[in-house]
């Protein structure tokens, strides 16, 4: 049996250059979690539906379970671990999720946090309907989404207040 070829893959993850040598079929989600030890990104379905694995690729939310790490070598990835502005504070989105009780088990939460972070960068003043649309591609089994919608609106307010 021939040994499966491995590829040296390096990325910028949360602003830091990270590298590992992996097989081509290694998904970006597994690469982040198991090769780089960034277990904040969660894997809920491995077929791109649930959104738990959502990370920001060059700023845009993508499903890290549907991308091979080798495909995005050299690009820039932000995971939930990279959302804090500094180790002692929370981002507006994180702060809002806490204030609004927008998470229960926390498993889907990293995907929501990354999605909403990008969503608010694009639309800093969402209406409630736009807040619903912003999170429409992510599954949560705990919250019924009520408080997540609130958190989107609250995060927008925190962002506005901090300007």
């Amino acid at each position, binding site marked *: 049996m021939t040994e499966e070829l491995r590829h040296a893959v390096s990325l910028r993850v949360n602003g830091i250059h990270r590298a590992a040598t992996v097989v081509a079929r290694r998904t970006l989600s597994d690469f982040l*979690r198991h090769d780089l030890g960034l277990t*904040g990104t969660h894997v809920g379905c491995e077929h791109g539906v649930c959104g738990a694995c959502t990370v920001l690729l060059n700023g845009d939310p993508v499903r890290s379970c549907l991308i091979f790490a080798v495909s995005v070598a050299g690009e820039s990835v932000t995971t*939930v671990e990279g959302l804090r502005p500094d180790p002692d504070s929370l981002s507006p989105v*994180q702060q809002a999720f806490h204030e609004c009780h927008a998470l229960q*088990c926390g498993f889907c*939460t990293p995907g929501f946090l990354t999605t909403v972070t990008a969503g608010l960068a694009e639309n800093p003043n969402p209406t409630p309907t736009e807040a619903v649309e912003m999170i429409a591609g992510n599954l949560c089994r705990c919250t019924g*989404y009520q408080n997540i919608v609130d958190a989107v609106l609250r995060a927008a307010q925190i962002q506005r207040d901090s300007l």
Partner: protein
Amino acid sequence: MSTRYFGASVPRTEDLRLITGQGRYTDDVGQQGVPALECAFVRSPHAHARIVNIEVGDALEIAGVHAIYTYEDLEGPAAEPLPVLIPHPNLHAPRTAYVLAREFVHHVGEPIALVVADDRYLAEDACDRIRVEYEIRPAVVGIAASRAATHAVHADVPDNISAHLIQQVGDVVAEMAAAPNTLELDLDIERSCSMPLEGRGVYARWDHDDRSLRVYSSTQTATSVRAAIAAKLGLPLGKVEVIAPDVGGGFGVKIMHPWAEEIIVPFAARALRRPVKWTEDRREHFISSAHERGQLQHIRVGFDDEGRLLALDVTFWHDNGAYTPYGIICPIVTSTQLLGPYKPRSYRVEFYSMYTTTVIVTPYRGAGRPQGVYAMERTMDAIAEYLGQDRTAVREANFIQPDEFPFDQGLIFQDGRPLIYDSGDYPRQLTMLKELIGWDAFGQRQAAAKRAGQLLGIGLGCYVEGTGPGPYEGAHVHVLTDGSVEVAIGLTTQGQGHETVFAQIVADELGVQFDKVRVVAGDTRRFGYAVGTFASRAAVMSGSAVALAAREAKAKALSVAADLLEVDPVDLELVDGMVSVKGSPSHAIGLGQLAVLSNPLRYAFDEAAKQATQFAKPADPDRPPIEPGESPGLEGLQYFSPPRSTFAAGMHAAIVAVDPDTSEISIVEYAVIHDCGNMINPMIVAGQVHGGVAQGIGGALYETLAYDSDGQLLNASFMDFLMPYVTEIPQIALGQLKLGHIQTPSPLNPLGIKGAGEAGVIPVSAVIASAVQDAVGLPITSMPLNPSALHALRHTVARAQMPTRPEVAE
């Protein structure tokens, strides 16, 4: 005066780690040290077959594959069938699976062989190379096929009936015969399932020096998994520790245990002397964990002209899947909770629990209640329609009144205890619900919509939910010498905010600041005796135990302080972590210091400890340092064991719109009235209700588990199992969902609380059926309901050929 935390919407302690990516779920464990080997299973592709041969072939030659196990490799108790967790005298033919299939498989997804490899990719490669030869046997799919018993699921159970149970109160036969009105209904409700976003997972680390095992499992019961692993692997209990780390949702499926994987993964870890991990993937979760809900129901009801129930006679058939490891809890719950807030003059219920060659059926949030409420509430609607009365009036006529508690329904509940409701106020709930949804004005709204070519309908559903069943839970409250408080409970947590709510209770009961309290759950190293997190019991059971343990710790603190201050303990108070004589707060002693003094020492291991050493202060030479019956340390250890369950209740109503052209169903408004007794944290209670309602809507309109006649699950992915996104759930922010609470405290526990975890999901299918029926004017007897089925129903009726049960789709 210090803050009171009980009843306050305190933000959650657990959030900080979870929103920063620092949570620790089972698949996250073991990042340091020896990397865990990973597992994949060869699972049966057939619903029913005899295994003729297993050919491992060259699978072991793949670089990175360490071991392959089949049934032949098991020995001792691990080779015996998995336990029947909840035996019941009427479960006359229980059957359980083996850890790895022995000769027969009874559903698609049953584990046959385990591959352990360097990673999951390689393990799956190896699975692909293992050849299993099967002799296919007939699949038995659906209750109708199971009842027909043309084929048996288990050869020695030819009628496919695992259990048969009858309960009755009063003389149903006589009452039915005498009733001025009678009706019959045939209903069916399909499968759904818990479907937490994190599947199951097991990480096992064997310490060969110590001959001990550490297991992390994504479970709702660490203590019982521990006991099961010890028994199956022949290990002393003290050599096994089980930790439920952060758990990504449970909703019932993770109370089922021990899963085959919870036995075989530690088995492999011990055999290989390497950490071994199995992280379930989504397809595995669909075909090898557990489902719930599927029932066929036949109801006969006799009632007077005001709609009062004189005789209620229910027979139902419950699809228990291929095995019965969890016994007959779900059908027992259906049969007893069916009665809801009502008091029929006579009631008879009979159920058959049926084998099918499908995934096992164990509790999913609600655990049989949604089906029972569906049966009862569809019946209430049918009575109202028959009598031409308002649907709320018929319900009102049957309510147990507030002055009738405790109310004995005369049945035996799922905990083996009498079904006695402890408290409640159903008439008030209904009044609030009608106001919240605008019930009385809806007729006009519906008529106006009709004139505009729109189909609107309103519906409601009421339920009573036994929560907080025993036998017991315990808590350990430990004041440390720095004044902080460590609390350990035995049951587990999977998102309910236990770290927060139990800290609230301790803060109040002990008299410390909230942020001084840390709570640990689901770690057998910290607390060994517990039952588990299910049946909306954590707040009731552990919450009560935590309160009792905190009170014990407080009493001890006051006693130590009383000795020190030479006053009577009753003259002391404990506020914000300081004990002082009432009225003179200047002479206060901190809890930390009392913790030091409560533990007489010989050795001063730190500065504070000096105070407690033997030469530190004069002592009474005639008294021992520790009085008989007392113990060192400032702590409380208490168990709470109530006589029976406490009964929460609620009522929901919905306004739905049906697209006249496409039959698409949308929820325009949804209202919830909820009573779980005293609320520890209203924000968390509301969150539980929100999530429950969403799961209920999933079960009513989107989710089903679609088996074909060969027993293949056709929708084993998130593409085809339609869990609602935000766009499918009415939103508070859009004015579509409204919540109201009342609080009727339970007299059965020290805090007056009732469980809240399952409530939101329970009546939703009944409510939506009621509302859609109101919108389209056709009987809705089969749930869940999708647009295709509703279209078929409307279309067929248009041709005056209404079926009793619409097919979803071929």
